[in-house]
């Protein structure tokens, strides 16, 4: 059902499905991972059938997410190359956060913040995957020094990743008319013109 035929397509069904496969995996990983991070979060392990089940499932979900994240990376990497305008946008992010985005530099499909978010997630995901392998005792037995290092890196990268995703989700909630892009793929023309004017011109020719 198309509400307005003039709406612009922002994501294809494949892109959306890919995003949500990664998103759901990430939520499961964050919940089960936090359970091992601090006792305050241990009850989260009961969502997975208890501590032992959370311990068993967490790494498999991690490998699953890593695979789909690679696909997502391949889909979106070219759109996330940082440009001069993005750097200017990032240097003035304070105005944006303050709620006054009228004078922000014109943005393409993604703004500087979204691109920075993309690359930070890539770095965190690589760190999480590599360190996760190091501490996966059920599958690997590695030298203790590496395992200890892996445990620290995994925890640090996980905290950074969770914080990034909280910001990612909040940004989508904050900027009205955004979430529908990831649910059913389209955005209004006005939304595109306000937030991603260069992209708006590119797809509408106006």
């Amino acid at each position, binding site marked *: 059902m198309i509400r307005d035929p003039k709406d612009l397509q922002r994501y294809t069904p494949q892109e959306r499905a890919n995003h949500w496969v990664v998103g759901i995996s990430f939520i499961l990983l964050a919940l089960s991972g936090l*359970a091992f*991070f601090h*006792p305050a979060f*241990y009850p989260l392990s009961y969502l997975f059938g208890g501590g032992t089940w959370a311990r068993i499932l967490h790494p498999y979900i991690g490998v699953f997410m890593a695979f789909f994240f690679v696909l997502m990376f391949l889909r979106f990497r070219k759109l996330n190359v940082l440009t001069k305008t993005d750097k200017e946008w990032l240097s003035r992010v304070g105005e944006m956060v303050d709620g006054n985005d009228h004078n922000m530099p014109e943005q393409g499909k993604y703004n500087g913040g979204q691109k920075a978010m993309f690359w930070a997630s890539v770095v965190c995901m690589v760190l999480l995957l590599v360190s996760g392998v190091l501490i996966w005792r059920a599958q690997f037995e590695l030298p203790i020094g590496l395992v200890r*290092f892996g*445990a620290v890196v995994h925890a640090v990268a996980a905290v950074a990743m969770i914080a990034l995703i*909280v910001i990612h989700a909040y940004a989508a909630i904050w900027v009205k008319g955004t979430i529908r892009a990831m649910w059913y793929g389209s955005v209004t023309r006005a939304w595109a013109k306000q937030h991603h004017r260069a992209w708006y011109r590119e797809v509408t020719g106006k």
Partner: protein
Amino acid sequence: MALQSLDIKQRSATTTPAPSVRQTMEVAKLIDVSTCIGCKACQAACMEWNDIRDEVGSNSGVYDNPVDLTAKSWTVMRFAEVEEGGRLEWLIRKDGCMHCADPGCLKACPAPGAIVQYANGVVDFHQENCIGCGYCITGCPFNVPRISREDNKAYKCSLCSDRVAVGQAPACAKACPTGAIQFGSKSDMKDYAEKRIGDLKERGYAKAGLYDPEGVGGTHVMYVLHHADRPALYNGLPANPAISPLVSLWKGFAKPLASLAIGAVALGSLFHYVMKGPNEVSKDIEKEVEKEAEQ
């Protein structure tokens, strides 16, 4: 596995005090390496009392059998042939959990109550709460805990906590034919060790001494060593064991700080929304776009 419940000094992944109304005497096992003859009665007594039989292994060319600690072999005699002053010395060390006062396993463990430390100093694993993550191995400065391939639970020497709870000495101490394994209050064991060290010094071992490493707050399994200046001679006994700084960072102050940081980001977002309001498409742009569409 344990009988005690009122005298718990520390409990893994628990941020409130554990039941600790009952105070008990601090105990220790003293292993006098200089009087050990390597008979392995302690290994046999350990498997007898705990009623666990490891798989029969194969001869690896040395006396060590099994060659390493396993989930079913909680103590192993390690034989080292060392040349000292032109003489061969056969240094035999009974390896197993040291029952640290500051246990790295307990610090690293994420499962509430899977590892406890009693007021008497014994560090005990409660396998029914163990989730099999192996963080205890990551935390241990002595490489002691082992995860069973059968049930994925971690195992190690319990210092016969069940025997100690009812006033008995650990099975290994009971079985030792030469008195190389002594058990009693930690202060008595230190006194006894002093006598043994004096004796060893008289016999020419000038560097004889007690191994009760401070880096882990002292241990509740101590060694009398002829060469206390070089513990590494005894099959790599660490000279200054301590919880790795990486483990302290990971399971120490970073843990609450990082949790707070995540909470702050989430709450910060909420308050940003409340205070700044949503970022909505402006009416002007909506009108502009409508005009453009009509053209």
